[in-house]
């Protein structure tokens, strides 16, 4: 018996749940202005989230997947990326999307059941939300491959959940990304649940970060409620990718504080104690505590920010509600670059059929 390979999985946290720094902060976080900027985004995300749920509850939006508790992951990922990188999101990264220039109105349109919400005016090359779990991991491989082939210094960032790490597409993509050393970062949000299925049912792997080992790439675990840890891991992974060092998998540990979606009732499968415990770790309070202790933030600023976010969200919701409904030709007009003759009659019939 000899040992032919050895691996370690590292975990990183900078701010503990009380907002105390437990490690010297990385460069970017030493400037409180940077952290305040992240904080503002996180608060906007929460305001957006609350509004979306309110709209859904009042029948003005379709099924919505809340990102409550995921604000640090979203802000860490969103702030680290460059504008011309490509982001491939799931439904729980609306926060990242906002930071990349997707508008609140576009997000509302999307959840309102309107494809126009995926025609992002901002990040034109970002992918739309991938609903079929993990399918987009393979898309990310293709995107990153294209970047490499053209010798660009861009990076693809693929977001996914803990449940997604059980799916074949995840692994096929991960394995290929490792093989070609692609400029690709896998941002895995381990929020402990995939609908009603707990993390430990998904896999006997102690960490999801170690899935990277199967692909011959680096995997790291971070405290996903600590925006500094997420951002720092992203910074390093992106820099490595840009330098040709290949892909990284980041497992961000957090908790889904909400139901899976507005169509779900999480109390059916998990107890209130667990959720209450998780609230103690939540990311916004943590960052605020740090900033307040640092005197970079105060009550007045908080009130002003909340007002500002609510107004912004309110205005976007109104713009969404004011958007005229899509018309029947939209079923046909972006199906092909040019609608084939065979379907022209169907289009006409659809328009005629009120």
């Amino acid at each position, binding site marked *: 018996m000899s040992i032919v390979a050895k691996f370690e999985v590292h975990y990183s946290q900078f701010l503990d749940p009380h907002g105390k720094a437990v490690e010297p902060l990385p460069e970017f976080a030493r400037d409180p202005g940077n952290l305040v900027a992240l904080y503002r985004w996180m608060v906007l995300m929460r305001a957006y989230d609350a509004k979306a749920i309110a709209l859904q509850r009042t029948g003005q939006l379709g099924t919505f997947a809340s990102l409550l508790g995921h604000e640090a992951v979203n802000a860490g990922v969103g702030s680290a990326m460059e504008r011309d990188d490509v982001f491939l999101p799931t439904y729980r990264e609306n926060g990242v999307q906002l930071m990349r220039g997707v508008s609140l109105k576009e997000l509302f349109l999307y959840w309102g059941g*309107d494809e126009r919400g995926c025609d992002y005016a901002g990040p034109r090359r970002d992918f739309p939300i991938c609903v079929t779990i993990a399918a987009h991991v393979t898309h990310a491989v293709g995107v990153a491959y294209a970047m490499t082939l053209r010798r660009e210094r861009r990076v693809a960032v693929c977001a996914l959940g803990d449940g997604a790490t059980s*799916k074949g597409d995840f692994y096929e993509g991960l394995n290929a990304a490792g093989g070609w050393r692609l400029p690709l970062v896998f941002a895995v949000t381990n929020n402990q649940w995939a609908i*009603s299925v707990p993390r430990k049912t998904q896999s006997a792997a102690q960490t999801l970060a170690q899935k990277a080992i199967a692909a011959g790439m680096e995997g790291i675990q971070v405290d996903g409620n600590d925006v500094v840890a997420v951002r720092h891991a992203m910074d390093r992974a992106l820099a490595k990718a840009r330098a040709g060092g290949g892909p990284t998998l980041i497992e961000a540990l957090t908790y889904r504080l909400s139901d899976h979606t507005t169509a779900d009732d999480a109390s059916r499968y998990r107890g209130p104690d667990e959720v209450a415990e998780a609230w103690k770790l939540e990311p916004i309070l943590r960052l605020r505590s740090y900033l307040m202790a640092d005197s970079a933030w105060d009550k007045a600023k908080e009130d002003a920010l909340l007002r500002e976010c609510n107004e912004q969200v309110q205005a976007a919701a109104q713009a969404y509600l004011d958007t005229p409904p899509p018309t029947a030709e939209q079923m046909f007009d972006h199906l092909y670059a040019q609608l084939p003759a065979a379907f022209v009659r169907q289009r006409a019939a659809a328009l005629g059929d009120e």
Partner: protein
Amino acid sequence: MAQITLVEAINLALAREMERDESVVVLGEDVGVDGGVFRATLGLAGRFGPGRVLDTPLAEALIAGMAIGMAAEGLKPVAEIQFAGFAYSTIDQILNHAGRMRHRTRGRLSCPMVVRTPCGAGIHAPEHHSESPESMFAHIPGIRVVYPSSPRRAYGLLLAAIRDPDPVVFLEPTRLYRLFKEEVADNGEAAPLDACFTLREGADVTLVTWGPMVPETLAAADELAEQGVSAEVVDVATLKPLDLDTILGSVARTGRCVVVTEAARTCSYASEIAAGLAEEALLNLLAPVQRVTGYDVVVPYSRLEHRYMPGKARIIAAVKKALAFA
């Protein structure tokens, strides 16, 4: 006898058969403590234990493949795929293995398994929750494809599907899960597989449909009746193998046929029915067969899906066209 919904009927059939036959196991995503996202497996984990009601990892090819292994090894797995939109990754396993195991081993191994999945649009759900993949499954040799349209038929057909010694893809019309209730006797009696159900007799035209479009088609028949048109309505129920004789018999009497499905038109199951008629009923047809179908487009997001699905108006228009044909 209780008045229950279609999804309750599914639940009832599952419980009944798990009680009767301990080789029956249920597997899928969220089928355990959550009882399935539509509650089709509600209470089963508590009653039969997590060993027989398995929450699987999030992996559809695994679910299908695992069911194949279980079935070949003597269990009777009933696998749930959460939505038909996620069932495409099971096609490889169902086509290349479930449908072939018996043939390939000349009967030595077999796959008595059921893959259940909710199908169809119209529930204002997100993308990929509106699929109608029945024709893709119906093309696969060695399997059965069943698509009930009422609580009673769902109960009886699911029992039949579980007891069937071969693989069955069991499609469930999401839109009808809770649309109406019906009295269902929980008597363990299976409904016949491989047979169409004539839901309404009529003399002027035959309306052929299945699954989620059945109520809409019946409603069209009602409205037509008010207008003096007598429409026969056939619920295909088992799409593979097809009981074409019932349809041919009806068309022999009515001379006209409209086939209704919400699936995208090209290579839909409506094409199969129309082809069967083109081959076997030419002399009986007084008017061309018409397919009333979804368009050959992606099912739009929820805000537009009502413009995608064929409704009563389109069915009635097709019937009128058939009647007007000289």
